[in-house]
């Protein structure tokens, strides 16, 4: 078997693990998730470095990233060619969709410098505590896009298709479709249809990355991916680098033309930082003169990165920071920014949160949603609880279990139950018993705290018709309320809840970093 075959097996295996873990990022009758579903993010040296640098903290959770970094230093940029699920997906898209249908436009080779410039830009910002990595890190993009967009879309399609078949009530149809649907539900689909704000733009960013394959193989990896750039820098002196035994090379150009990374120049020279060790060139070389071991005959081609470009990017990264430090939300926070239980204090939280969407994916009531600008541009796509969409389940600690960088701390259940993420408030002008409309105790009955944070007091009131009557009216005990939002989710008023939660009283402002 050629090394190329091994590489393909590795790509498939890793991608299947990725999908398996993604599908298992969901409550499956276990309070504690049995797998380290966030491991891909924790393996990502870019995420680790960005979170650690901008958050000014050593994050023990991301130790696996050190392994990847170490292996890259030792072996070279193999992660991109052999393991990265984004890279593998792009290869698959390329092979199935764009193999024969592409390239009306030749992408200039010099574009590959952009990824280095992006990396430097991110580093400049991170040094001054602004973390932008979420927009560019491939693992983060991939999981977020799956979680918030593609997986929900897939669910919708499957659910509605089988729903239509079910709706026919035709025996021969449903006899086949229902068992198939049950099987898919048991193994692949979400328990309930997930719904997210921003699902379209998040998905479009991802689809754009796929679409760029139309112009060039691995367009993203070659030109834009800052993780690739980071690994290229780390792996520059790796042991396994491409070399061509020039005596036997006929300069047939096959390797250079087929290279998915454009890492070959004049057949014998290699941009070592660009080479992801896919071994295609070795497999197709008719003269069999390409090796990935030994030193003799290595010829390196250098990426044309100008010093000025690098410095300018770094400076730009640094200069961006103050613009985000004068946003008005820092003076008066949006009351709707209700962070998940265990979230660090806001600045630390944002510097660590990579917007990977793991917490939103796992949130059992679908309540965690991506922000737009409520937490500033800096906080884009970070998770907030939107109680009208879903509440924070009292006995659940899943978001803290999946956060790869500890932006949401993993809390033991008894501790989590005490974390206040906000406070409920009754809108007396809308609440049915308060305005004399009718009885209603839905908020109180759902309140999960052992001693209920919503109390019903019998009070004399007046019906709308003007008759005196005793009403049971809800009050919020702010000592007991933890802001879980189930009252707001369940309030029977269909538009705005007559009880609503804001971030007031959240306890994380004084939380310590663990």
């Amino acid at each position, binding site marked *: 078997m050629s090394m190329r075959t091994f590489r393909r097996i590795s790509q498939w295996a890793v991608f299947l693990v990725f999908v398996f873990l993604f599908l298992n990022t969901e*409550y499956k009758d276990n309070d504690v998730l049995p797998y380290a579903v966030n491991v891909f993010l924790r393996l990502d040296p870019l995420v680790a470095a960005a979170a650690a640098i901008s958050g000014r903290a050593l994050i023990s959770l991301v130790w696996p990233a050190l392994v990847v970094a170490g292996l890259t230093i030792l072996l070279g940029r193999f992660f991109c060619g052999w393991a990265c699920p984004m890279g593998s997906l792009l290869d698959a898209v390329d092979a199935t969709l764009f193999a024969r249908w592409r390239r009306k436009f030749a992408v200039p080779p010099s574009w590959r410098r952009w990824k280095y410039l992006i990396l430097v830009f991110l580093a400049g910002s991170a040094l001054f505590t602004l973390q932008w990595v979420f927009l560019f890190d491939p693992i983060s993009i991939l999981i977020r896009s799956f979680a918030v967009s593609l997986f929900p879309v897939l669910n919708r399609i499957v659910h509605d298709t089988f729903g239509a078949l079910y*709706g026919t009530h035709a025996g021969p149809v449903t006899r086949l479709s229902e068992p198939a649907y049950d099987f898919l539900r048991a193994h692949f689909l979400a328990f309930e249809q997930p719904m997210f704000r921003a699902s379209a733009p998040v998905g479009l960013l991802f689809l754009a990355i796929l679409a760029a394959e139309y112009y060039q193989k691995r367009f993203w990896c070659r030109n834009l991916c800052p993780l690739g750039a980071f690994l290229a820098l780390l792996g520059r002196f790796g042991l396994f680098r491409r070399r061509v035994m020039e005596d036997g090379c006929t300069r047939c150009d096959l390797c250079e033309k087929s290279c998915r990374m454009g890492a070959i120049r004049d057949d014998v020279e290699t941009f070592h930082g660009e080479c992801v060790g896919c071994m295609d060139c070795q497999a197709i070389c008719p003269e069999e003169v390409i090796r990935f071991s030994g030193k003799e005959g290595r010829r390196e081609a250098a990426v044309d990165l100008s010093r000025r470009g690098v410095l300018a990017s770094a400076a730009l990264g640094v200069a961006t920071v103050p613009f985000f430090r004068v946003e008005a939300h820092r003076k008066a926070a949006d009351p709707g920014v209700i962070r998940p239980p265990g979230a660090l204090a806001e600045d630390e939280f944002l510097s660590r949160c990579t917007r990977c969407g793991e917490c939103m994916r796992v949130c059992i009531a679908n309540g965690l949603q991506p922000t737009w600008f409520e937490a500033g541009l800096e906080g884009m796509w970070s998770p907030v609880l939107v109680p009208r969409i879903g509440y924070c389940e009292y*006995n659940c600690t899943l978001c803290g279990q999946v956060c790869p960088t500890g932006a949401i701390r993993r809390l033991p259940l008894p501790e989590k139950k005490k974390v206040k993420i906000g406070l409920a408030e009754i809108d007396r002008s809308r609440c049915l018993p308060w305005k004399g409309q009718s009885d*209603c*105790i839905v908020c*109180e009955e759902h309140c999960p705290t052992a001693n209920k944070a919503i109390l019903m007091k019998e009070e004399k009131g007046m019906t709308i018709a003007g008759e005196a009557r005793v009403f049971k009216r809800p009050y919020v005990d702010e000592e007991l309320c933890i802001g879980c939002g189930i009252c707001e989710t369940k309030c*029977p008023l269909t538009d705005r809840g007559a009880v609503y939660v804001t971030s007031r009283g959240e306890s994380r402002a004084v939380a310590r970093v663990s």
Partner: protein
Amino acid sequence: MTRARCLWSRRKFLRLMGGAAGMLAAGGAGLTEGGHAVPEAAAAPGAGVKVAVASGAAPSENVARAVAALGGIKAFVSRGDVVVLKPNIGWDRTPEQAANTNPEVVVALAEMCLSAGAKEVRVFDRTCNDPRRCYVNSGIQAAVEAFAKKRGASGVVRVYHVEDRKFRRTAIPGAFALKEWDLYRDALEADKIVNVPVAKHHTLATATLGLKNMMGIMGGNRGQIHYNLSDCLVDIHRRLPTSLTVIDATRVLLRNGPSGGNLADVRALGKVFASPDVVAADVVAAERVFGWKPSDVAHIRKALDAKLGVSSPAQIRVVEA
């Protein structure tokens, strides 16, 4: 199979619609049109409707004795019946917290239905917290599945989650308030419904017992029926009369119901109440568990007035089993 039942049900539905005017005139007597076998006792108020009360440490034995005192399960479930066993699985709480029906009670009834020759025993509830968490932490999913497996009846006795697509907009002729609502298909199409509530305190309803438990087959925004809870509960039972009501009072949540969560609010009572008539069962359980008279609990009072079952406590005969 699905199709045949479905068509039957639609015909039944149309017949119901057609009969609505007559039913209105006949008041509560129209109940028998529901398609479910309504126990004789309930259909003929005045004959002395039995409510069996069993006490003891073992919930399953209590169930066995209470049902035996009513003539045994075969009086309610016939061979070949599709039975819905409707416990309360509404909350993400453990059995000790007494917010859901005790799993042993559910299993005991599943076993009886099976022994009576039921073709299918369906266990489900539309929950308030996350359905998966409720099914797991109530202990009901595990208990029913273990029982079904032990008896080699996994295809017959099933506990499963409610799906939105299986709610069907259903008219309720003669309703006080709930003229139509989304009701669960699997309950609409069942031959028998066995109602297995847990007795709990409830801030609005005062007590939640058999009448209130049937909210679990309702879809849609159930919070809205709290505007007019008593009428709506009676309406639901008009459309879906139950064959047997078994009220679990093994542990009783006395305060902070219906969800509770505080063990200090729970009292171990070790009782089970059973009756073919849900109203009679509720009257007796309210009295014996909480010390409330029918006049204290609005929806029980309403059900009596509406002649849903017994129309007066005087018609009830309590049997210690």
